[in-house]
């Protein structure tokens, strides 16, 4: 497949859901409303690309993924996977993609890992011998060979997620749709999954569409990212390109000992500070306007709150900063 060939193409893709809002306790006390989950998304993802789809909850990420994998019909617009229309040629589209949806459901817990893979291999039309070979390869690659014949109910969450990814590339599709593959995993398991996904993309030349809430993950893995907000693609580009959009902003990380309880809130009120947050390691992270955020006023604020700065680090904005910057616009 040509590298410039769009494996995914969407044109003015729209999806409207009809929802019923309750207006009272009785079953008929409700009114019908329409919610637009996608409001005209245009997107092209090229062959071999690792594309990250970001956005807050309800932004339309899963809706887009479900349309692409034919689980959902678009209201307007069109989309193609490897040149096949997702509505008119759904059968061919399903052959071209492998899917791992959010969460550890989706596997038969009373079957072993290998039995699960063999079942799905048959649904993809693989002959028995070929299915066995591919299942073994997938299990080896995902590091599940030694537990392949255990029931899935005995697997850890991380193992189930690895099995879900093994399932997605069993039939060797050119495109993988991975919907939050590291959600709910501990850092070690998430790191293992990320390494495996990278290996899949690099060794087997897969095009990957990854949806994630984890912005560090997207920054680390993706060639390009798209940010969805309220059904619209508000940013599209490489992480470096997107970061240039916030070139007028800077990040300051402070290590404060002892850290007063109201410090983060106090820092957030300073002139030029856009966002202040407490990090898991106890540090305080400030995102602000380069020209307006004054280090002196930060020091004064920390002193006034009764803290003492032990370390200051100046950083470039991350993809996370871009994300929040765009969402706040």
């Amino acid at each position, binding site marked *: 497949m040509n590298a410039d060939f769009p494996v995914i193409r969407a044109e003015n893709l729209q*999806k409207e*859901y*009809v929802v019923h809002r309750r207006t009272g306790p009785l079953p008929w006390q409700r009114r019908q409303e329409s919610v637009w989950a996608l409001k005209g998304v245009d997107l092209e993802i090229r062959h071999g690309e690792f594309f990250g789809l970001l956005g807050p909850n309800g932004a339309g990420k899963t*809706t887009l993924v*479900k349309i692409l*994998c*034919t*689980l*959902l*019909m678009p209201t307007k617009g069109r989309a193609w996977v490897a040149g096949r229309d997702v509505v008119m040629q759904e*059968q*061919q589209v*399903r*052959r071209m*993609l492998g*899917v791992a*949806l959010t*969460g550890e*459901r*989706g*596997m*038969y*817990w*009373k*079957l072993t890992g290998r*039995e699960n893979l*063999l*079942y*799905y291999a*048959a*649904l*993809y*039309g693989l*002959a*028995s011998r070929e299915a066995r070979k591919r299942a073994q390869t997938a299990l080896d690659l995902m590091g599940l060979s030694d537990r392949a014949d255990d*029931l899935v109910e005995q697997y850890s969450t991380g193992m189930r997620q690895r099995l879900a990814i093994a*399932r997605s590339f069993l039939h060797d599709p050119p495109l993988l749709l991975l919907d939050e593959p590291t959600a709910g995993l501990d850092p070690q398991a998430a790191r293992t999954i990320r390494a495996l996904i990278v290996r899949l993309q690099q060794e087997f030349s897969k095009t990957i569409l990854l949806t994630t809430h984890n912005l560090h993950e997207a920054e680390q893995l993706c060639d390009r990212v798209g940010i969805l907000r309220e059904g619209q693609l508000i940013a599209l580009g490489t992480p470096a390109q997107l970061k240039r959009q916030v070139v007028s902003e800077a990040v300051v990380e402070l290590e404060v000992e002892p850290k007063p309880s109201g410090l983060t809130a106090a820092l957030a009120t300073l002139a030029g500070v856009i966002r202040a947050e407490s990090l898991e390691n106890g540090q305080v992270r400030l995102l602000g306007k380069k020209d307006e955020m004054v280090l002196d006023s930060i020091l004064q604020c920390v002193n006034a709150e009764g803290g003492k700065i032990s370390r200051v680090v100046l950083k470039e904005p991350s993809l996370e900063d871009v994300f929040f910057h765009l969402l706040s616009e």
Partner: protein
Amino acid sequence: MELLVEARAIASTCWKDLLVFFRYPLRTLSLVVEPFLFFVPFIIFGAMFAQDGSAAGLAAFVGVADYASFVVTGALFWNFVSAIFWGIGLSLREEMVQGTLELAWTTPARRFSLLLGRTVAHLITTIITTGLMGLGFTLLFGYRWLGGNLPLAMTTLLLSLVTLYGLGFVFAGVVLWLKEPYAIANVSRIVLGLLCGWLYPITVLPEWLQPLSLALPLTYAIDLLRAALLGTRTLLPLSWELVILGFSAALCPAVGYLLFRWLERHSRTSGTLGQY
């Protein structure tokens, strides 16, 4: 080639369901014991109205006085109705809850193959449990059927199964659409049980109910099966009943599957396919 791929999907779905089924040993056991125990009280209840094992009242309606065999034939057939009519939809519901439905739906296997594979597994387990039930009734309650017209019984069963598949597709579609299969299954079980006469001849129903009963193909299926195995009198001439059942066997699967596809498309449009 395409046929081979679909056959593989059907066989694999059936194999998967059987594996899962036999990995719940207590559920397997209850599937044999529960229907048997459920039907036993009806047989005992009937004994109350018989003299020396002969139910004169029943004989007046159907020409045969063996109430136990009359009920057992209906009960054994009812097993197939439960497995196929409601079984497809209920197993779809299980897949929704497990989260496996959407993933199976992202594969290129045809929906028809996924549904059929599921029901083949149900059919296999139902044949086993019905056989064991029949054996139990024969040994414990003197169920007599061996002297019957087996070719007619097999033809009736085959046509009935094809009809039931069609009805099962509709129920599966309704499950995808409404998400709440148990209320519908319970009500339809009671209504069908009341109307199609697995427990009694439908001629004992109030006159205003009988037209409804006669509109159901299952009524003729049970009636023909009893006529074949026990020699009972049929409601309509036997050949008419066979034609009606044959007609419903030709019509129901196609109409049922079209309805299922329509409701499935509706679920994919409303975004409720995987919801439960």
